Structure formats: structure tokens, C-alpha cells
């Protein structure tokens, strides 16, 4: 029984600790400093903001 309780405790600390650690890292890395830029990070020169990525929609654009 003690073994199982220990497993639960360790997993609990690992899960919670990992989330806290990741959050702390994200804060110190500046991940929350420029949300505008983060939202744009999925766009590239090939697929920029304003261009739908379904080609037929893109045709209408021009």
C-alpha cells in the first residue's frame, strides 16, 4: 500500500512540477512579452497574413 501511495505522490509532484517548471521557463524566456508576434509566428513569407491557404480561396484574392 505504501508503494502505491509513493507512486501517486511522485507522479503528482512530477505532473504539477513539470507544469510549474514549464510556466516558469516560459516567463523567463519572454514567451509572454509579445503576444502579437507570437500569434503571427505561424505565418511565413510563402503563406503570409492575409492569404488563405486553400489555393482556390487564394485565387480570389488576386
Amino acid at each position: 500500500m505504501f508503494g502505491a501511495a509513493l507512486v501517486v505522490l511522485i507522479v503528482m509532484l512530477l505532473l504539477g512540477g513539470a507544469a510549474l517548471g514549464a510556466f516558469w521557463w516560459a516567463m523567463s524566456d519572454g514567451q509572454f512579452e509579445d503576444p502579437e508576434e507570437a500569434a503571427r509566428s505561424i505565418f511565413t513569407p510563402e503563406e503570409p497574413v492575409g492569404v488563405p491557404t486553400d489555393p482556390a480561396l487564394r485565387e480570389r484574392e488576386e
Partner: protein
Amino acid sequence: MTPSDPEAVRKSRQERLEVDRAARWPVGMFLGSSLFWLLAGSVLALLASIKLHNPGFLAEAGWLTFGRVRPAHLNTMAYGWLSTAGIGIGLWMLSRLCRVPIADHSSLTLAAVLWNMGNAVGTFGILRGDSTAIEWLEYPTYAAPFLLASFAFVVLAGVNLVRNRRPGHIYISQWYIFAAFFWFPMLYFTAHGLLVLLPVQAPAQPPVNWWFAHNALGLWFTPIGLAAAYYLIPKIIGRPIHSYYLSAIGFWSLAFFYAWNGMHHLIGGPYPAFLITASVVASVMMFIPVVTVAINHHFTMKGHFKALLWSPTLRFVVFGAMSYTLVSVQGSLTALRSVNHVTHFTHYTVAHAHLGVYAFASMSFFGAIYYIMPRLLEREWPSRWLIRLHFWPSAIGIAIYWLSLTHGGGLQGLELNRGTTPFMEIVELTLPYLGARSVGGSLMALGHAAFAASFIWMLARRGLQGAEATLFKRRAEEAPDTLTARS
């Protein structure tokens, strides 16, 4: 449109093609095999559904009895369809967002083989009568090593992508996927360990069981589905998400509070009140991530809703995102003791589960697969009619399913609470709703058959590389001007 220099366009196109080509085999394997389990799971689902209003149907053989096909359905759908597709979708999106081609081809091939073996062995085990009888973990013990070993390779591939990522912001979808790749194996290993390998004392088992089952939804399927919505909606309409800030709040509130949710399955059970109350509070707190997601997707889509007439991916993903709001609000309310008092142990719960796993997760995954496959194969979907034949039966099917069982389950709960109605009368009361469920389920299965036909045809057809995208309408048909509205 931002004026861009042709060299930068060429380079970013090259980079995208490299990423998609490297993903072709590993991601394609997971997505392709997930379809097999989707079909197998649909057949098992129909069997189980029909047996509830026609108990004699195919009841002669032991392996086809309700007690076996029902858990076999749940597990093939959860681990065979959703998890397999989720791994494929997650790996592809992670590779795209990290802007790193997937390098671990041999280990991911092995992972796909092991994962499918685990599912085959597990499903066979359940039908053979070896179920563990623990809901959501019915696969017998001998299936677990396959699944865990396979997932270890998946995690490794994910870690490699994230470690080698190009510098810059980590997008919200990356957070969701990478977190899910850690949460799932941890949940599965812990639950399997505490319930099957080294079982805790009997009274402590249901809390572990529901901690796992609920987290499998919220910390495994949900993050992948939301990651898909957060990536695909902006990409398809060409507009950044409305508020990145809100999306971050949504992710972190899910990460910190979701794990408390499971105990609301035990309301009324012989457990300390604080355990249940904490879970009810956490369930209501889920309004925070849900509202952030709903606001975000609504305002991102605003002005672009007509694109739903055109883009198959968008239609499936937006259907999924809207269902996410609905299922989550319903879930928070169902976790209240007063509501649960009526709905617990009725068909209402089954309807709620399908709203989450099907209307939200499965529909989002379908949408993601419609986006991913043409980019992996550099070839288009063969027929818009087949995509329509997938979307409408699935959408109408789940609507019938959810409405009938929610209503029937509510009546069932009220009658059970009354205490004076004979039990058999209540059973008969639910029959028309169970019949309607079979109708809805058949429609969903029809949609899946169309999806599989589409997928196989696409793989087989070689002549149409680089053709125009398969949309719901031909380009010659009138395109609404709103499609081109600028953000």
C-alpha cells in the same frame, strides 16, 4: 498583403516542402491506420447500440455479447482511432511549428507498428473475454507494453523536434501538443500501474479510474483538438488568432486545473466530500479555458464565416471548436450536484461523452486530416462529393445521437429518482431514444465509410498531383467577397 521578397518566399516554400515530405511516411502511417480503427470501432459501436434495443441481436456467440463489444468499441475508438490520429496530427503540427523536418523515421515506423499491434492485441483480448473490466482501460495487461513502448518513441520524436526548433516564439499549438505528448503516457502508466499491475485497495480504485478516464479526454484528446483549431483556423483564413494572450490563459488554466476534474464522476459515491467538492469546483473553473477558446475562435472567424461554404477543413474544425464550447459548458453544469443527481447513471452521460469525443475531438481530427493529407502527398482529395458525404451524415448523425440520448437520459434520470415507477417501465421509456441513437450512429458510420473511400482513392490515384484544392464549391461558382476581407 505584405510585400515580400521572392527569395524569402522561395526559401520558406522550400522549408515547408521539406517539413511536409519528411512527415509523409511517419505521419501518413499513423493517419492511415487510425482510419482502420475508426471503421472497426464504428462496427462495434453499431453492434452495441442495436443490442440495447434488440437484446437478442447476434447474442449467440460469447465474443459478440454487449459486455464485450461495448468496451471493445470504446477502446478501439479511444486508442485505435483518436490516439493514433492524434499522434499523427500532433507530430505533423509539431514538425511544422518547430520548422524542423521529422528525422526519426525508423523509430516512428516501429512506433506505428507497435501501437497498432497493441490495439489489435487489446481488442482481440477484450472480445476473447480478457477485459480488465476497468472502464477506459479494458485492454488486457498484455496490450499495455506495446502501447507504452510505442509512445516512448513518439515522445522521443517530439522531444527531438522541440529541441531542434528554429528560434522564435513557441506557438500555442506547440504548447498543447508537447504537453499532451507528456501527459498521456504519464496518465496511462500511472493508471495502468495502480489499477492493473499493482492494484490499490478496491475503494481507492474508482478515483484512480476516473482521474485517468477524464484526463484522457481533457489532457490528451482536447489539447490535440485545440492545437488543430488554433493552427488551422488562422492558416486557412489567413488571419492571426484574435488574442494570443487569451489563448495562453486558456492553455495554462487547463494545465493547472484540469487534472482535478475526474472526481465529479463519483458524485453520490462513498467518498470524502472534499474530494468531490474540489472536483466540482475545478469543473466549474473549466469555464475559464473554455471561454478563452470560444471568444478567440469566434473573433478570429468573424467576417470569414462564409469560408465555411468552401473549405472542408475549416467546416470540420469549426464544427469541432463550437462543439468544444458546447460540451464543456454542458460538462461544467453536469458536474453540479443538483444536475448530477438526475443525470448520473443514465444515457445522458453517454450523450455527453460522445459530444466531446465525437462532435469535438473526432470532427476536429477529420478536419486536420483533410488539411494534412494533400500536403503530405502533394495531391488533392479526389471528390468533393465524398467529403460532403462524410460531413453531413456525421454532423446530422451526432446531432440525432446527442439530442435523443440527452433527452431520453434526462427522462430516465427523473423517473429513476421518482422511486415509484417500476424499473422495467423506465427501461421501456428509453427504447425510442436508443433506437434514435442507432439511426444517428448509422449515419456517422456512413460518413466514416465515405471518409475511408476518399482516403483510399486518394492514395491510389496517381495522376493529379498539384491539382487545385478540393473545396465544397467549384472555383467557377460565385465566391463570396467576404473571403478576401483583410484582418
